[in-house]
């Protein structure tokens, strides 16, 4: 099968590449080895001050509502982090003290939302908090399963019964100026978070839960839908195994499912992610890139890959494939001519690209520009 560009990796970087190319009228295929890191997305795309308008437009065209306001956001364990461009669900504040009296609403028996941590974190900022677990008969069916009182399952129910939550919260509200709710709204129906905000006569802040992240899954779903609507071919659950390369030019990709049926293209984008996504693999001897055997930045001695403190910056997280200035990855020191590396596979050593999500989008747009600006494009 022949395409203009074949993209390896169906996460944020891969989808942004695919959507941009399809929009430019190019045929593309995305090989996605299962679902991706968007399922663990915090909801904030960018921490950098400057956000490319294209980034915002691309998301909006896919139906992803974002807002931009450099400041801080509330994290699930009651801490605050800087954030700028975020999903509309994520409230952004100039300072951590966003209210005076806060009502934190959770669900009975729900352990993936950390109401007591949130309360303690907010109280540290001088707010007073009240926690109320809702006991909704509509969630009783989940209680029957010991492992399913989890965010995604609750969200599925909430798509149908979010109005009940609005009513309950309205009854519960006393003199609180702010309500904190778990991010379990708008899995399929993207309008729900906004409608909840309209329905509750107080400031509504959605706080994250243990992954999978409901806004993250929604983001993935909308991007994929947009990509397919533009005519893109999304090969879910397939894996690029090897590539046919001659003189630094990639001709085709072999995948697990299509075996002898190669995917040919003029250009290739490698958006296969970091260790979790298997864009990078490791064994006791080295860290390597499995599809093309690209050069990977790394300390030669395994003992230097780690910092003994869990929360410190881990050297291994900064490792990624080496590239030239045009994001062409190097193989044995020489750049691959029609291959571009984008997203987490670049490693964490490019602060100019911003956060992980920022890096994914910026590098994808850079690669797409180069592909489209070529004389024979």
């Amino acid at each position: 099968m022949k395409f203009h560009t074949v993209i390896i990796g169906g996460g944020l970087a891969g989808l942004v590449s695919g959507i941009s190319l399809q929009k430019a009228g190019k045929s593309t295929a995305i090989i996605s080895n299962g679902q991706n890191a968007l399922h663990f997305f915090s909801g904030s795309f960018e921490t950098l001050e400057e956000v490319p308008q294209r980034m915002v437009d691309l998301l909006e065209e896919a139906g992803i509502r974002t807002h931009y306001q450099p400041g801080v956001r509330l994290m699930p364990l009651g801490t605050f982090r800087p954030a700028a461009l975020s999903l509309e669900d994520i409230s952004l504040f100039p300072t951590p003290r966003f209210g005076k009296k806060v009502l934190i609403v959770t669900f009975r028996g729900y352990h993936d939302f950390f109401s007591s941590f949130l309360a303690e974190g907010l109280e540290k900022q001088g707010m007073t908090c009240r926690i109320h677990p809702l006991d909704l008969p509509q969630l009783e069916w989940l209680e029957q399963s010991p492992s399913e009182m989890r965010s995604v399952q609750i969200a599925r129910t909430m798509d149908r019964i979010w109005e009940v939550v609005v009513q309950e919260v309205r009854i519960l509200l006393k003199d609180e100026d702010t309500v904190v709710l778990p991010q379990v709204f708008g899995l399929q129906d993207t309008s729900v978070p906004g409608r909840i905000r309209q329905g509750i006569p107080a400031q509504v802040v959605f706080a994250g839960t243990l992954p999978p992240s409901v806004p993250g899954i929604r983001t993935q779903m909308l991007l994929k839908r947009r990509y397919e609507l533009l005519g893109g071919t999304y090969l879910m659950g397939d894996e690029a195994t090897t590539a046919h390369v001659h003189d630094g030019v990639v001709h085709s990709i072999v995948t697990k499912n299509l075996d002898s049926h190669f995917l040919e293209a003029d250009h290739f984008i490698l958006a296969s992610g970091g260790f979790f996504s298997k864009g990078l693999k490791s064994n006791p001897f080295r860290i390597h890139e499995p599809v093309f055997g690209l050069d990977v930045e790394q300390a030669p001695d395994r003992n230097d890959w780690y910092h003994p403190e869990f929360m410190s910056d881990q050297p291994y997280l900064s490792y990624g494939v080496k590239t030239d200035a045009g994001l062409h990855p190097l193989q044995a020191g020489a750049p691959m001519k029609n291959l571009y590396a984008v997203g987490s596979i670049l490693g964490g050593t490019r602060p100019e690209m911003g956060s992980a999500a920022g890096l994914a989008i910026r590098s994808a747009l850079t690669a797409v520009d180069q592909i489209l600006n070529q004389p024979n494009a």
Partner: protein
Amino acid sequence: MNHNEFDVIIIGGGITGAGTQRDCAMRGLRTLLIERSDIATGATGRNHGLLHSGARYAVNDPESAEECIKENMILRRIASHCVEETDGLFITLPEDDLGYQQTFVEACRKAGIRAEIIDPDLARRLEPSVNPDLIGAVRVPDGSVDPFRLCAANMLDAKLHGGQVRLHTEVTGFIREGDTIRGVHTRNRTTGEEADYYAPVTVNACGIWGQHIAELAGVRIGMYPAKGALLVFAHRVNNRVINRCRKPSNADILVPGDTVCIIGTTSTRIPFEECDHVAVTPDEVTLLITEGAKMAPALSSTRILRAYAGVRPLVSADNDPTGRNISRGIVCLDHEIRDGLKGFVTITGGKLMTYRLMAEIATDTVCRKLQVNKTCQTADTPLPGSEERSYEAVAQKIWETPSMAQKAAAARLGTRASSIQTHDRLDEALICECEEVSVGEVNAAIERLDASTLTDLRRRTRIGMGTCQGEFCACRAAGLLAKAHGCVEKERDDLANFLQERWKGNFPIGWGDTLREAEYTQWVYKHVLGL
């Protein structure tokens, strides 16, 4: 009588201390156990968890071998919920001397250990993971034992017999009158609270740290710290213990225990200062994998979950640099006889397998000093939880159609599984999905088994011991602990400490799926949850 006066104070919450407290309490003594950290944090929780048949010692140390096989049979009776009767093999590989097998079997028989030479073919059938190239095999009654469970059950029984336990409490000094120890000064390491406790006898059961405690009391014991490193593989490769049939050496025992299997160990002399933070070196990791894969080739391609090391509390007898030839024999010192210091006893040496015997010897000494004439019952009375022989029976008795988590709870707690509160369906919700630990089981451990931190909970319930190493369960359990203790700020630190403790065992083997998991965990806690 004052609330801080006892008949005997036991220092050390390892298996020896817990066993001694149980024995003393069962003989009617008022007991107090003081542990500076948590149960089983020293050598007790840092070994293979092998229920030795004694075969390993049969050739070099027949005395230990005999003790082992006797205690092995006793533990099967009294600690059924801590023990798995897996059976074991001593295999001879082509590079080993098959002649040793005969010496070995004879020594076993002399020590009273049933050792049966079997055809290599039968060995391959009995244990499909075994190196198919083996040229000889001997079947012995090895098994596995969960040291955390065993320790907790002993302590719980002591409490049921009126004993008291102070965890996270450090002995800062002794209350001494002339040549007599009258009690101890202590400080709670969490709250900083100080307290004095009095008893006519104090037992030092601190393993390798016993040397320091003895010094505090003013006597000297020559201890010999020997580090042993081990690797935990992420699932059970073998269902029978596999040993090498040769002179005891490095990495020649592979033990299946609960959902994992463990290869070990090494033996390296270390300075005393390192006892509190032993780390596994890359060379040790390589050695363990290389030797392990010789016994079970699947280990060369099985995910490793973590690396850890313990310090053997050997009492030095000679200057052997390897420490292998030192007897693991039991040492019970009545310091009145040895050093002229009254009211102070040290029990050390020995091994996990012989803890009950050590406790019996120590308790005999205590009783003699207190002039109490009671006999030891610990060899015949089952530990709480071990009243039934099988967890199948337990599970079926408590729940007609047990869920996966209920079956797992029955396997962990034995008959004590009935104490998990299930008045609410929500108590059946899972906190740890890898090891199937429910809200009810976690709450029961917090309320009845003195768990105050996530790491304490891990030792009592196995949360965080599974494949994900606490990725999801840690913060769920932290929520329950915060609720139980009413202190979120402390719990936040506890969560960070727990993740740090898990990482410590992960990074020495940080490659492949373990590194993937680490990247994921670090991402979730740093960027998604905001710890």
